[in-house]
């Protein structure tokens, strides 16, 4: 049967069978959860300050810290075999490899001997509509737009597929 002893770190050494594993106290996990909730609240409050770089830090910096805490304290990866770390890291590397290979084409709209005309036109159209206050939030991609009841674009709105900016003085679409 089980045999419990406690060490100075709040762990209970739980011996059973041919090996011994450490059992943390409930308070240990509650503290980790409390820290995760506090970090979550900070990430929500971050954008309220209105500083873009601070929002990025509080949103994504905190997400990375939270993820590390979940992996270490809840998934117990820190006490897992090293090779498990390696194949998880390999998966992550594939993700970064994908990002590195594809992002130059996706994140830029023009380069040497190529221009992403569609992306540039869409960008210009959305910005023009946003400036005019007529942005069709729910549609915006031409024939794919499906206006819902009470959210139809104002009359006289240029078809989105033609990438034409909305006429001046146009009434903004309802809602949103």
């Amino acid at each position, binding site marked *: 049967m*089980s045999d*419990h002893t406690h060490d100075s770190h709040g762990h209970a050494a*739980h011996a*059973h069978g041919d090996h011994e*594993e450490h*059992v*943390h106290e409930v308070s240990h*996990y*509650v503290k*980790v*959860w409390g820290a995760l*909730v506090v970090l*979550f609240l900070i*990430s*929500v409050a971050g*954008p309220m300050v209105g500083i873009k770089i601070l929002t*990025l830090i509080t*949103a*994504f910096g*905190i*997400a990375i810290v939270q*993820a590390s805490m*979940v*992996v270490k304290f*809840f*998934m117990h990866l820190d006490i*897992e*075999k090293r090779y*498990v770390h390696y*194949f*998880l890291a390999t*998966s*992550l590397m*594939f*993700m*970064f490899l*994908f*990002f590195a290979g*594809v*992002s130059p084409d*996706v*994140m830029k*709209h023009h380069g040497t001997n190529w221009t992403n005309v569609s*992306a540039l036109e*869409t*960008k210009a159209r*959305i910005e023009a509509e946003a400036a005019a206050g007529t*942005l069709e*939030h*729910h*549609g*915006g*991609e031409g024939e*794919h737009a*499906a*206006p*819902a009841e009470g*959210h139809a674009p104002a009359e006289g709105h240029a078809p989105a597929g033609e990438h034409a900016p909305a006429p001046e003085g146009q009434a903004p679409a309802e*809602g*949103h």
Partner: protein
Amino acid sequence: MAFKPIATTRSAAGILTAKLAVWWLLASEVVIFGGVLASYIMHRIGHPEWAHYAVHTNTLAGGTNTFVLLTSSLSAVLAHRAAQLKDGATAAKLLLATVGGGGIFLVIKSFEWANEIKHGYTISANPFWSFYYTAAGIHGLHVIAGMTLMLWVANDARKNQELHRVELVGIYWHFVDLVWIFLFPLLYIAK
């Protein structure tokens, strides 16, 4: 006590075979979710104008769901702790609490989506909403899968059977939580 002749540990791996399988599964999940998230990030950077669409995601719903998932991860790890102590009944109850958390998550998500679709923000409205529904949808399917597995494991755990599975299904659930930790700022905070 009779033991079932199941090979649970292999000397070459050094850990429970089932646990190795779970980690292997998660490694493949990293590629799946990593691909979706990386695609979203590069498109978001390439299209700053998407911010005009992102402003319409419901931060309250997303935030509440983040809190719910973090809390469900706590109950999942406490279930693991109970299983370590050979307390199958408590482990089963905590797993059911975790399933309850998943249920709350899905209910909030369904109301959130229904409201967005009602306002015309559908999966085909524009690429931003396509990413939104695809990423959150794949994640939601994982929540449902985790809840289903947890009910199965809880049923065995309450009889003090297969208690090692409590940790395994917990690891999977924490990963689902972890993905949401990244989805939340990407879809609800970065506006």
